[in-house]
């Protein structure tokens, strides 16, 4: 069954087109990754799908319910873990969950057991009665995930679930997300601008840039498009002649030069190192480093947009002037 379907979904903020006529389908039980730099339109899409804002054009359905005409049915079917904490810091962790349970009309007996259950799932049982303002960033995020799961949604949105968290907490959250999906079959829509995250978690990845769909496939298929491994070189001088030869070499499928970095795509790159180093020496190019690796989604992103996700970034995932400053 189709869990999420969009047709030409579009959102404009005044003159800015934040999401530009995107269409895709997500199957039930899938972990679907939205990958893109800040400002690509990921959060705006999530906000539309979760009924917080209305689309400018186009339509979308969650579990068969239209996001504009059947908002209440959509709201019943979804759970959302927001990018910025959406917790009341003057309440305790447990009180935040109780609030959620009552808002979703859970009966008392189920409320108690479910709160205990989700608290232990995210390992916050011992901190449940402390005020949320005393929580660390990772604890807040875990509490939000617990909350998003409490009412057993069919579709869970995770908007940048690990942004600003340390590596260890990030891995932890990845494990929760995977386990949850395997155990409960819940459909998950995840946004991230971390390549590893999209790669590690998603069954399929949608790459979004400036509101447009750039690519949509499984991580493996996306990487296959690149046609092989990546050899990354750093050069210490002007290497135009060397780059020229690389472009002309038949077994190199793609050559991308960016500042002092040259990325070559080829099969069995580990066997070609000598040849490349030799060519660099012939053209007087000073090689500072050479590395060979399997392609990452980062390379996929570069392949489709011609730039790295990082240089694209900066700022907020919102049009300027839209978002209020000064959060806690």
């Amino acid at each position, binding site marked *: 069954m189709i869990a999420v379907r969009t047709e030409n979904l579009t959102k404009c903020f005044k003159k800015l087109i934040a999401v530009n006529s995107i269409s895709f389908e997500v199957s039930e039980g899938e972990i679907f990754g939205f990958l893109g730099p800040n400002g690509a339109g990921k959060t705006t899409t999530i906000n539309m799908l979760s009924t917080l804002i209305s689309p400018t054009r186009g339509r979308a359905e969650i579990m068969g319910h239209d996001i504009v005409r059947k908002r209440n049915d959509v709201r019943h079917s979804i759970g959302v873990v927001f990018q910025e904490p959406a917790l009341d810091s*003057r309440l305790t962790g447990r009180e935040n969950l109780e609030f959620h349970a009552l808002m979703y009309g859970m009966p008392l007996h189920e409320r108690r057991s479910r709160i205990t259950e989700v608290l232990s799932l995210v390992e916050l049982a011992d901190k449940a009665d402390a005020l949320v303002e005393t929580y660390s960033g990772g604890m807040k995020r875990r509490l939000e995930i617990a909350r998003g799961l409490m009412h057993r949604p069919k579709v869970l949105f995770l908007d940048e679930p690990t942004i600003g968290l340390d590596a260890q907490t990030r891995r932890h959250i990845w494990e929760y997300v995977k386990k949850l999906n395997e155990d409960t079959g819940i459909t998950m829509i995840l946004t991230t601008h971390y390549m590893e995250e999209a790669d590690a978690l998603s069954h399929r990845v949608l790459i979004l840039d400036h509101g447009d769909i750039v690519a949509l496939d499984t991580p493996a298929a996306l990487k296959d498009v690149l046609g092989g491994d990546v050899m990354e070189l750093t050069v210490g001088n002007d290497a135009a002649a060397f780059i020229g030869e690389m472009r002309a070499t038949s077994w190199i499928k793609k050559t991308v030069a960016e500042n002092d970095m040259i990325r070559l795509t080829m099969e069995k790159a580990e066997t070609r190192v000598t040849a490349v180093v030799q060519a660099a020496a012939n053209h007087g190019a000073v090689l500072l480093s050479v590395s060979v690796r399997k392609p990452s989604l980062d390379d996929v992103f570069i392949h489709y947009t011609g730039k790295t996700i990082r240089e694209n970034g900066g700022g907020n995932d919102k049009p300027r002037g839209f978002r209020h400053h000064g959060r806690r």
Partner: protein
Amino acid sequence: MPYGGDSMSVLNVIFVLWLRDMKRFVRAPSRIIGNITLPFFMLVALGAGFGRMPIPGMQSPNYLSFLVPGMVGMTILFSGVFSGMSVLWDRQYGFLKEIMVAPVPRVAIVIGRIASGSTTGVIQATVIALFATALGFVLPSPVKFALAVVFMVLISIIFTGIGLIFASRMKDEQGFGLIMNFLVLPFLFLSGAFAPISNLPAWVRAISCIDPLTYGIEGLRAVLLGSSAIALPVSFAVCAACAVLLILTGAWFFETSEAV
């Protein structure tokens, strides 16, 4: 299985929103003090200061007792209108999204907010009325005081509703504060809180007649003092009608507002 959707869940939602605000209120009580400072000093300065002066057009035994319903109304006006600020805080700290993404009727969200705004408003107003007794104000019978609480609740609903409507469309705290100040002063000074409206020129009196606070304060005078410029049933009918209207308008504004 989706939960809820019936009338029980509407009551649950109103209750949980009210409960949350009460917890926040109890944990940060400084807000109450801030809200009642102005009416407190006005009672002292004006009530005690002008207490013995005869004022034409006034049916009350003295100025202090005339002023007390006015100050009770003013306290509720301030507390109500600025409870919209809590929506802005929730928006700023993200919690509004948690509320707005929940599968609950928007009218329940508005009534829940109004319920907590009214509770704090009535508590503050009661503190002011009790304080006035220390200056010589005589409280009426408990039954009449209960009637006064009914009027306090109605005034609260009206002005909390107005605050929420503006808050549903605004993102910036300073702007909200500015607009609210701009609104509060005409509501207050045209309402006859400080002086009988019968003393006003006819055209100003005409404006007073479209100020809901006028009916709220006259209603309070009718039950607290036993005399008022507007008949009690009229005040009650106008306040009740305005309250219903604002709840419905508020629900519409929340239904159509964007939470981020």
